[in-house]
């Protein structure tokens, strides 16, 4: 972490002003990739904060600076991450002749699977456009390549096997209905939670509240876990895996579920740290367990 000393500036000088001064010296920088802290252990200072806000700060005090690297906007990332898989999946669904040398049409199961998969990502794109409120504006650009590889890669693998001419649907018809039902349950639940989160945070603010259920019965899961959106998402993919009986779909469910569990554990810890009265029985993502 680079250290920069501020020896100029009045009480009214804000972190944004300091950033602009810094940019004059190093023109490759821009505000979203610049982070200032009062000490190595503190959180990043917000751009609106002023020098006068910090009692211990005076002429010659040390500010810690870190270059977060090239940044990219969250919405850009989400679109790339979510629209990519739609195309990657559709390639194998639509171009079966050239890819597999397949002669016949797709089966009902393959058609419904396609609708489920593409529908999931269409929902995500729409949510990104209309529902999500992000607490940070950008993320490091390295994340874009990593995330896209993950999403597009799995999408291709899953689609290749679902749309293969030698695809074998699950043995029992009941599995198809169970799979589809589970998927729909997960999708509706996940959407309900996203809507609930949106309502908990008024537009333009960075408000943080203890999540609570609203009139939508799907949100009752908030009583049991901090991140029911992740729970429902995992359920949704479980449904898709049962429906298609494709190994890579099951693998995707496990890997995605594991990653979400990690995130949920982090958010759960933050909630507990931030709110003294945080409900005790709640777990992070798996009711009663973790």
């Amino acid at each position, binding site marked *: 972490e680079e250290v920069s000393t501020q020896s100029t500036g009045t009480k009214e000088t804000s972190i944004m002003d300091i950033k602009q001064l810094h940019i004059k010296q190093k023109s490759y920088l821009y505000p979203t990739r610049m982070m200032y802290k009062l000490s190595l252990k503190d959180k990043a200072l917000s751009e609106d904060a002023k020098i006068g806000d910090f009692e211990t700060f005076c002429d010659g005090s040390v500010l810690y600076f870190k270059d977060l690297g090239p940044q990219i906007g969250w919405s850009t990332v989400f679109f790339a991450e979510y629209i990519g898989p739609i195309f990657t999946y559709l390639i194998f669904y639509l171009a079966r002749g050239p890819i597999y040398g397949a002669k016949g049409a797709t089966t009902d199961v393959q058609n419904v699977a396609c609708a489920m998969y593409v529908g999931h990502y269409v929902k995500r794109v729409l949510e990104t456009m209309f529902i999500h409120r992000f607490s940070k504006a950008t993320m490091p650009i390295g994340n874009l390549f990593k995330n896209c590889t993950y999403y597009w890669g799995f999408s291709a693998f899953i689609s290749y096997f*679902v749309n293969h001419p*030698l695809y*074998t649907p699950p043995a029992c018809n009941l599995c198809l209905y169970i799979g589809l039902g589970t998927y729909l349950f997960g999708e509706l639940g996940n959407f309900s939670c996203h809507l609930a989160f949106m309502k908990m945070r008024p537009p333009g603010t960075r408000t943080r509240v203890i999540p609570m259920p609203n009139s939508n019965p799907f949100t009752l899961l908030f009583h049991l876990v901090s991140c029911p959106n992740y729970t429902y998402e995992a359920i949704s993919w479980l449904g898709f895996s049962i429906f298609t*009986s494709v*190994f890579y779909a099951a693998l995707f469910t496990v890997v995605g579920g594991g990653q979400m569990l990690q995130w949920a554990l982090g958010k759960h810890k933050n909630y507990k740290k931030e709110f003294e009265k945080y409900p005790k029985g709640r777990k992070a993502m798996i009711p009663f367990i973790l």
Partner: protein
Amino acid sequence: MLSKIYLLLYNCCLACGWNIVLYQAVEELCNSRNPTYVYEKCKVALKISQTLALLEIVHAAVGLVRSSPVTTFIQVQSRLVVLWLVLDPVSEAQGNSNVPMMIIAWCVAEIVRYWYYALSLVDKVPYVLTWCRYTFFTFLYPIGVSGELLTIYSVLPVVTATGMFSLELPNKWNVSFHYPIFLMLYMAGYVPYLPKLYMHMIKQRGKMLGKAAADGEKKSN
């Protein structure tokens, strides 16, 4: 205290195990002057010694030693893949000349490493051993990696022809696995790793040899 005794025992046992492998491999080479039966002669000791290294992942995971369990896992699994999934199943490849080269490189590296760990536990590492541990890798890594890559490459024809470890469609889980392609990707995976590992060891060498020389002077003063 108990953990120290256990680790001491572990490291000494493995050092001896690899010593046996080395002895058997070299003896066979000296007697027959060709690589054909080297693997045959030392494979029992080799399998035992190399597979026991799985314990090191556990040691790292429970905090018995200070290494990262992830790094340890990567190192151990790469040896086990070559040993159990490549060399052992394909008898046609066991007589090639890259096999003793690889085995002997592994032996020397492991013998030095385990004696270094054992003596570190009782704080009695002679400078010579430190020097070996942080110098031998400069040629053992390239030799060992070449051996491993050549071994994997050498089994590709057999693996392709027999379809071993491969899975074809159609099946209940709609999954297919082409072992030859997996092996080729695995080989490609070595490419980013070796430079990173090598440079890390070079950096360690600078640190450790400098420190060891300073320690040696302190002790003699």
